[in-house]
């Protein structure tokens, strides 16, 4: 099996995410044994952000890293594990609300494809960039 980064690169629909992870210097972390649970926004999800948002973040690496680490949770949590919880604590430190009562929603994002397993964790594909608060 491949690691989280390789899967994202090979999928082809996470170009913005991969570029942001590279810019933020998080590649090595996400290639480490982990394990991690990553909520991966698609390219369309990033494209929904108002213009300028990504531009400013790419200029400011620690700030970019903070937004990205909000999408990562320590441990390997499959959809079935998350269904038992209301909230997760991100690597960034803030809580992520989850709702599996009707579909699988992570904050205001909907999971498009759950449980993509990697060597060092699991990826859940989401349709929106999630933000703290």
């Amino acid at each position, binding site marked *: 099996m491949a690691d989280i980064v390789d899967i994202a690169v090979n999928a082809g629909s996470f170009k913005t995410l991969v570029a942001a992870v590279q810019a933020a210097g998080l590649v090595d972390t996400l290639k480490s044994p982990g394990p991690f649970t990553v909520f991966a926004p698609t390219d369309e999800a990033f494209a929904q952000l*108002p*213009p300028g*948002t990504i531009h400013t973040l790419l200029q400011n690496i620690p700030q970019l890293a903070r937004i990205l680490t909000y999408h990562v949770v320590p441990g390997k949590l499959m959809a079935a594990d998350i269904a038992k919880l209301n909230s997760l604590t991100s690597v960034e430190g803030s809580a992520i609300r989850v709702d599996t009562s009707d579909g699988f929603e992570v904050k205001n994002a909907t999971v498009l494809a759950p449980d993509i397993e990697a060597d060092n964790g699991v990826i859940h594909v989401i349709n929106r960039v999630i933000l703290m*608060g």
Partner: protein
Amino acid sequence: MTTATATKLPPSQHEFAEVIHRLEAGGAMLPDSPENLMQIIGIYKAYAVPMDFYWRDLLYIAERVFLNPFPFFKYFLPKEYLDLHNHYAGDDADLRVWQKGEASAHPELLEFMEKGKTFKMPKLFHHLWHDRVNMEFAEACMRAMLWHGRDMGWGKFDAYLDTPEYKAAADKAIKAYFKGNPVMLGMYKMFPEMFIEQVRQLSYYSNLGLFWEVMAPVFFEMSDRYDSGDIKSVPDAMNFLVNGIFAMAGRPIYHHVYIGDEMYEIIPKSCGFTWLYEAALPYVEAVFYRTAPFRGTKSYNAQVKQVPEDQKDFHYGILYADVFPVGTAGIPPTLLMQDMLHFLPNYLVDYYQQHCRGEDDMLIQLGISFQRSMYCVTSAVIQALRTALLYPLDDPNPKHLEANREFFESQLNRFKRPEARLRDIQSPDYR
């Protein structure tokens, strides 16, 4: 006024249902009318000029004046800070928000600093005559943020000020600043917390300075776009602000101090603090909503609970202010009104002359326009939070629309109290 809404939900039963339906249709708390638009844009422009002074001076105090025990000249901005390039204007901008503007101090500001409303004379006389930009207003806003910092529920800035890393960085800068000054170093040894607390306040100077550095070019650009016809309605203005909030969200918030030739990072950029979470949201909460009861013109009896017990329930910001009594003493919002008076666009001067007592109460009238304009900014913050944390206004899922409505209703609950001016600004006759 239309209550038509794009949603499929039944009508809201909220006291401000009309406003909620307007927010759900992509509008603002302030009704959309050409008169409202003219007032708020004119005020943004008049606000942006003194703001261009505020942010520069706030950074100057945070970075250079620092712990000067006799900061008599802290409002005397050196050329270096007047020339300091705004990161969001000019050719070398990080992101050029103000398209036509220069990165250094605004020409109208420079002209005012030279002549004031009297005539050209040495800086010191302008200062003593109070014929100058009122930095006291900016400092009052900064103090509101410091005072409410702890329990605002947004960002990590205030909590960081209590960490060992922060104290160690402050300690290093304090010792460097007072190097060769045994009296002050002795004082520091005796009262270390007092010095650290002063540095915390200076960190808020930096925070607010970095926040307003963004807002000044945003407001100038809005004024230009109104003049050129690109902003045609109140929702246009609000949406420009919403986009601005997102575009600037990741701007770093930090506190650097320059002592001699060396730079000390009290709060390094690597903390990852952002403009949105660590500055803008706390600013809106502390300054627009809460602040503190104004001293001077109005008495409050704390024993009969005229002042809330919890800081989170404070409601003395511009969204609640009774502009008339506020306008009778030298207290912070009046100082801002005075500052804006110098830079009103002509169309707003003409407008005020036609109403009420004309020139005699221009300060009150512009204070109320300012209130309207800040309801528009607050609407932008509410819509930006809805965009960031909730769902699109045209989301096909009714559960999502219900969540949006709950959010809007909870936000407007804060304006149910009698002091709130949300009711007043619905009518053009409130002036």
